[in-house]
């Protein structure tokens, strides 16, 4: 008995009735249900990661963001311009340790979020919590989205970006 050698004809042993049922249920749950549900959600859901991606030069992206913020500027919040663009493209830049600019949007309208980091990885997340997106330097993501609730949202960086990572807070304002 060296820590239990398997019984002699273990390869030919019958699996007990309870375990056979379990095996069928477990296979149905994982291979059929989980995989199908995931695929169906991705094809039909209203919250998915369908979007575009571009390689982008950080400086070129920064210039586009500046131009965007200037064109739709309606005010300023703590030294950061507030941009109120019409439905369509909205730009957002992540740079240690700020989000630029502050976005002012309308509930129920469709926007295309063009977001990129210009230095190190950052994480886009909102409070109140809607969703989180990972950002990398050198890549621009384009995500279509509709803010379905109004309110003042804080933008929180949730991917460690340096010793003042926790001070990287921005704003998205959504009006009725």
């Amino acid at each position, binding site marked *: *008995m*060296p*820590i*239990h*050698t*398997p019984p*002699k004809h*273990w390869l030919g*042993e019958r*699996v*007990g009735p*309870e*375990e056979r*049922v*379990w095996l069928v249920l*477990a296979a149905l*749950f*994982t*291979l059929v249900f*989980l*995989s199908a549900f*995931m695929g169906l959600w*991705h094809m039909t*859901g*209203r*919250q*998915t*990661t*369908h*979007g575009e*991606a*571009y390689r982008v030069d950080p400086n070129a992206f920064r210039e586009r963001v500046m131009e965007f913020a200037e064109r739709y500027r309606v005010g300023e919040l703590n030294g950061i311009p507030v941009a109120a663009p019409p439905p369509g493209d909205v730009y957002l830049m992540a740079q240690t340790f700020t989000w630029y600019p502050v976005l002012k949007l309308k509930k129920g309208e469709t926007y295309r979020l063009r977001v990129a980091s210009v*230095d*190190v*990885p950052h994480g886009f*997340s909102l*409070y*109140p*919590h*809607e*969703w*989180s997106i*990972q950002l*990398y330097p*050198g*890549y621009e993501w384009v*995500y*279509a*989205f*509709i803010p379905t609730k109004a309110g003042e949202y804080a933008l929180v960086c*949730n*991917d*460690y970006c340096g*010793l*003042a*990572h*926790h*001070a990287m*807070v921005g*704003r998205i304002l959504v009006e009725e």
Partner: protein
Amino acid sequence: MAIALERTCPATGLRLFSAAETLVKWNAVAAVVFLLLGLLWVIPSTLNRVLGPETISPNLYYQATFLHGWNMLIFWVLFFEVALLYFAASAILKTPLAWPRLAWGGFWLMLAGALLINYLGMTQPASFLPFTPYVPLKAPPLFYLAILLFAVGAILAVLVFFATLYGAWKARTYGASMPLAAFGALTAAILAVTTLLSGAIAFIPAFFWSLGVIPELNALWWRHTFWGFGHGAQQVNLAAMVTAWYLLALFTVGGTTPSERLSRIAFFLYLLGINLGSAHHLLTEPTGALSSAWTWVNTGYLIHVAVLGSLIHAFSVPAALERGLRLKGFTQGLFGWLLRAPWSNPGFSALVLSVVLFGFLGGTSGVTMGSYDANLKAHNTLMVVGHFKGTVVAGMTLAFMGLTYYLLPLLFRRRLVLPGLAKVQPWLFGLGMALLSLAMLRLGVVYGMPRRFGDTFTFGGSALAFSYPPEVTFLLALMGIGGTLALLGGLAFVLVAVGTLLAGRPLSDEGIRTAYQVKPEEGEVRPRGVYALALAFLVFFLVYYLYNHWFLSQAWFIGRP
């Protein structure tokens, strides 16, 4: 330390070869030392998260989280796993360890790497990349070198394992088929190879980049490759934990798997599917960067093949317990065996808590947040931390603790000191960790509270700071209470383990035989109790998964709005 070249264990009938036994002991001791360091460094981390930056500064939080992460997730885990590999290869397969000098070389390399990381973490603020050093965040070259030293040491240990296995296979020391525990260890070792290769592919260029030899690394590529190592390591842990479960079922109640065939198929499914799981670290990247098909195949079908493996073990391991106990005569009703189980044996309570908490907290949350779009709610929030507290801590660490309660008397031949403390230790640790994990899961998914974040109270005094709602205070308190209980449980474990090594009374062969006799129970028994419990678990899993998707459906529209 044993003097004879080999001896026969009086409790298990295993032949213990002295070179292997000494290596198992040294690796296990190193593991416990790093566990203690990891436990101490979690104190500032938790205080910062629960009480705020006035108690513990964000800088100290980042430093402590770095040291906690490396000591726990890498050093404690890997030293223990190397001990487990040597034990499985040599003792279970009844063969002397191959290349003991190489094994010692591996040990010293791993130790050097681990000590260097600790030294850097304590002295150089520039290396505070809390566990995940995503490029282009840069650490000094020594940091990457330390990781490489450690990884090379671990590769040597895996080589020794394979060489020993080959020797045993050639000499047919173990009969026709290898025991299940050795099969599980083999699975872990194979997964370790792909894991360590990914680590090398990520960290060798990072080392040269840090030196300035390579000008630039692609951040997206690097994160993906890093997780081939980072999550691959967790799959090694998974296979090692399940191996520890089967061993503990046998040690504690003589339980054997109801189906050798299915248990082995389940381990094989891990090999097929699980390493591709690292793709689920790239779920919030748009389909323009990583196609739907690529993501769906990797995080859908392939990972679910591995999940099926886990569900098979989720039946087999508890069924092994039920079989052992029923065959011992506890046959009353559906759950009579469970009520009359040896709950005061810390090996047994650690095993049961580990299985239950891993399943309900770690496994279900992992599958759910790894589900393609559901990840939008979980990515980089405390939910991720709640998940892995359920898997590697409440699951794997608790299982390893349970196994240590057998390692001490059987290998070190010492009677446990403080048996009363040992009895409550798994409960303190397991239930504390369960509270902590539950609180983190909810803080993450509902409030989006970020992980690895040094100040969720004042945001470093930022003018755009905001406050989390009052409900969060309750969850943070729960985190603090759970964390404290788990910390006490962890320290109690270290106290019992180290106390036994230093002051435990020696056990005679006769003493070991009477107290720890391992006797596998075999016979026809239908695990009806476990069947009922498993069905209930599947219903819970389904409800939890659907609930999380309902919750996702309430969020702002994104993607194809």
